[in-house]
């Protein structure tokens, strides 16, 4: 029931912000009905679980996103330099990083963060870790990604 209410509130907020109708009663009623029907469908389809409503990662994920933005910025400059270099010195390699995230949502957050950072792409999720493809030796920084994994594990536990 808690997840149902959260979904209704989130859908209502998205509906209001995307439509911008704050003072038209008829349209607000239609909006309310459509939000409730969508939430009921989600409930009926049985998709209201900890994966579709990842309450566990809030509010820690906001701080994490700010930290991640800085990392993405640094990596972008690095990859852009390689793309523009007269003779690009690439040394691509595959390597395994540990995956400390326990929940599915945490693993998705970690794998997506690795992919989002230019210079590293998560290729495969395995039992023993995440297989990552790095663009150069310097960008394939196992320690930095291990640190990222620790941060993800921290925010998924704070529930």
């Amino acid at each position, binding site marked *: 029931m808690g997840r149902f209410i959260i979904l209704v509130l989130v859908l209502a907020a998205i509906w209001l912000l995307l439509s911008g109708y704050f003072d038209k009663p008829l349209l607000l009623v239609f909006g309310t009905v459509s939000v409730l029907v969508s939430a009921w469908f989600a409930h009926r389809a049985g998709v209201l679980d900890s994966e579709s409503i990842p309450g566990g990662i809030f509010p820690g994920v906001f701080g994490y996103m700010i930290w991640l933005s800085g990392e*993405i910025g640094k990596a972008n400059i690095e990859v852009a330099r390689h793309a523009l270099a007269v003779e690009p010195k690439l040394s691509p390699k595959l390597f395994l990083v540990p995956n400390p995230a326990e929940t599915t949502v945490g693993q998705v957050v970690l794998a997506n963060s690795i992919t989002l*950072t*230019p210079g590293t792409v998560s290729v*495969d999720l395995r039992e023993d870790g995440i297989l990552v*493809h790095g663009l150069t030796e310097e960008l394939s920084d196992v320690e930095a990604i291990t640190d990222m994994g620790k941060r993800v594990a921290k925010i998924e536990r704070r529930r």
Partner: protein
Amino acid sequence: MEHLDLIRDIASWVLFLVGGAMVVIGAVGLVRFPDFFTRLHAAGVTDTAGAELIIIGMMLQSPSWLQVAKLGFIGVFLLLTSPVATHALAHAAWMTGFKPMQGTDLRYDGDGK
């Protein structure tokens, strides 16, 4: 007030120019990098820095907070979906047995498929 507008215009100009440059750099890298996996990294520059900087620049130019919110939605959804697409491509290539180039001499392992 005029000063504020000027500062806002300059800030969004800088963001547009840097964002646009990042999109072009991503495209240049896409052409110049040697194999499939390295090209994915170049596309990542366009996905993240390029798109997000241009969206932030647009946010500064929006006439109302509602449009800032909508642009914010676009930015967040881009950040959530583009790595999924990149991972889907990389994973599909990996699962079908396509091996990446490795090392400074950029050679393929095995049969060099």
